[in-house]
């Protein structure tokens, strides 16, 4: 039944000054890329990708950017949150030599996919892109899992100086990656799609969500493609048919917001 089930915060770990990971008990089986609707009673209910998966414990990792994420940020061990889901399709992860490109908090939802790849004895190359050194997280976690982690910062404070997509472009020229998995700002992902060629390409989209069960239409893109239920992961073929991709999203009222204006 799609009603929140209450769990309590198990641990809270600050990843950066603005990013935090909360773990909690939830036995649901999860495909990397799926998300929960997280209810912070009295505040809001918001979509959050799963950033850590074990049989009984799951986690979310988020940036503090508004009311709800602020409230989440301040939760302590034992505090109650509600979960609906997991929702969405998750990654298919078909490729054998995958390149992961994370922009900003995109690293949160890519991490379980990368760990799964490593457990399957394939090696993931991961580009972790951030504005600046202090915004980076999960570098150690992913290296430990065996992935080859490459860091980019917009200001050059660490790793490659430039956008994650720039480094990706370089890498794709020289190495034989057969798959690209990405989560980050949509314009970045659109740029990456342009580089993808014949490779497997999967990108995780974010849209304002209300029902998260494919009913209300709030999150729709293209010809009624529901990001909550048909996504949030879409392959390159589909994304090429969706004119909205990388261009605009919709706010809570359904009004269009162009990504060039968006914060």
């Amino acid at each position, binding site marked *: 039944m799609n009603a929140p089930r209450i769990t309590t915060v198990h641990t809270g770990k600050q990843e950066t000054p603005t990013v935090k990971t909360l773990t909690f008990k939830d036995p649901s089986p999860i495909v990397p890329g799926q998300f929960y*609707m997280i*209810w912070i009673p009295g505040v809001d*209910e918001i979509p959050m990708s799963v950033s850590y998966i074990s049989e009984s414990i799951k986690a979310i990792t988020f940036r503090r950017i508004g009311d709800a994420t602020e409230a989440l940020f301040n939760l302590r061990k034992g505090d109650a949150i509600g979960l609906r889901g997991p929702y969405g399709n998750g990654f298919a992860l078909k490729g054998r030599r995958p390149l992961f490109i994370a922009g900003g908090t995109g690293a949160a939802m890519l991490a379980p996919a990368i760990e799964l790849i490593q457990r399957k004895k394939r090696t993931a190359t991961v580009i972790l892109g951030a504005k600046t050194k202090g915004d980076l997280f999960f570098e150690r976690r992913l290296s430990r899992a065996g992935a080859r982690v490459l860091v980019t910062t917009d200001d050059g404070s660490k790793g490659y100086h430039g956008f994650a997509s720039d480094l990706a472009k370089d890498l794709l020229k020289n190495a034989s990656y057969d798959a690209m998995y990405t989560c980050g700002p949509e314009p970045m992902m659109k740029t990456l799609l342009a580089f993808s060629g014949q490779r497997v390409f999967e990108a995780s989209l974010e849209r304002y969500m*209300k*029902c998260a069960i494919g*009913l209300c239409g709030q999150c729709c893109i293209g010809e009624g493609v529901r990001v909550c239920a048909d996504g949030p992961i879409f392959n390159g073929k589909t994304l090429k048919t969706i004119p909205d991709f990388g261009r605009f999203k919709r706010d809570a009222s359904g009004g269009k917001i162009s990504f060039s204006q968006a914060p």
Partner: protein
Amino acid sequence: MAPIKHTDLYPTNQYRLRPMPDLKTILGPLTLKNPTILASGIMDEDAGSMHRMITSGAGAIVTKSIGLDPRPGYPNPTIVETPCGLLNAMGLPNPGITDFTHELDLLRNAPVPIIGSIYGKDPEEFSTLARHMERHHVAAVELNVSCPHAKHYGMEVGMDPQILSNITAAVTHTVHIPVYVKLSPNVTDIVILAQAAADAHADAIVAINTLKGMSIDLDVRRPILANRTGGYSGPAIKPIGVRCVYDISQHVSIPVIGVGGITTGADVLEYLMAGASAVQIGTAVYLRGPTVFSHITQEITDWLTTHHVARLSDLIGAAHP
């Protein structure tokens, strides 16, 4: 080329004796290819979504309820499931009529009628909205005077026969397209409201909108919906919707469009027999997925075939004495 023999076209006797039943239904000037209409508020905030529902087989589409100005709706949670239905308190989110007309323009050549749902707080707002809708080529407008959880809008304007009559009259005087009035079941006597709308020259009654309900989480001891109360839809409300349609269709001569809990072809037939000329489907888009319209249409076809009913329209009102 050999001439096609009769038996090639109709390979078995069965096919010859049982032509496909006719699912058409007539709503005044509009003819629907089948009686299933997408209900307002479900997959209908943008042209792309509505297009998908058309492709999935809906006989007509009602848009999201649109107001004059953009409205974000209520904070989440806006939806929660209960064992027999959904509670929602979306709070009439919509981009406002100006933005929305762009979506309508994309649907100008839609193969099925698009019905524009509007909400407002007085006859003027409704009329203005209806005029916009008409200009952007909707086939009809539906007045949402029945949302159970939007302050100043919705139910509050639709519970009083006089206010309802004023709104309906204002709109019917303003536009030339058919005007449907969607009623709330959260009233003492829905028939009086239906009569008020009919007397003010509404072209059809749509019944029912959601019932006002609440669900409380025991662990955190508070209502789950941010708005606390919400509108109850889905299988649980079908007996109430069927009763409303039965009562209304006994007392007004305009067509009634049935809504509430329809999930299967059998549910559609029950509403038709109760007196509905067509039906709307909302929650079932969640329960059975976006392809629900073609599934339900197939179920209706199968039933009509098995029961040797040639025309769906013959069943309208069949349960009346």
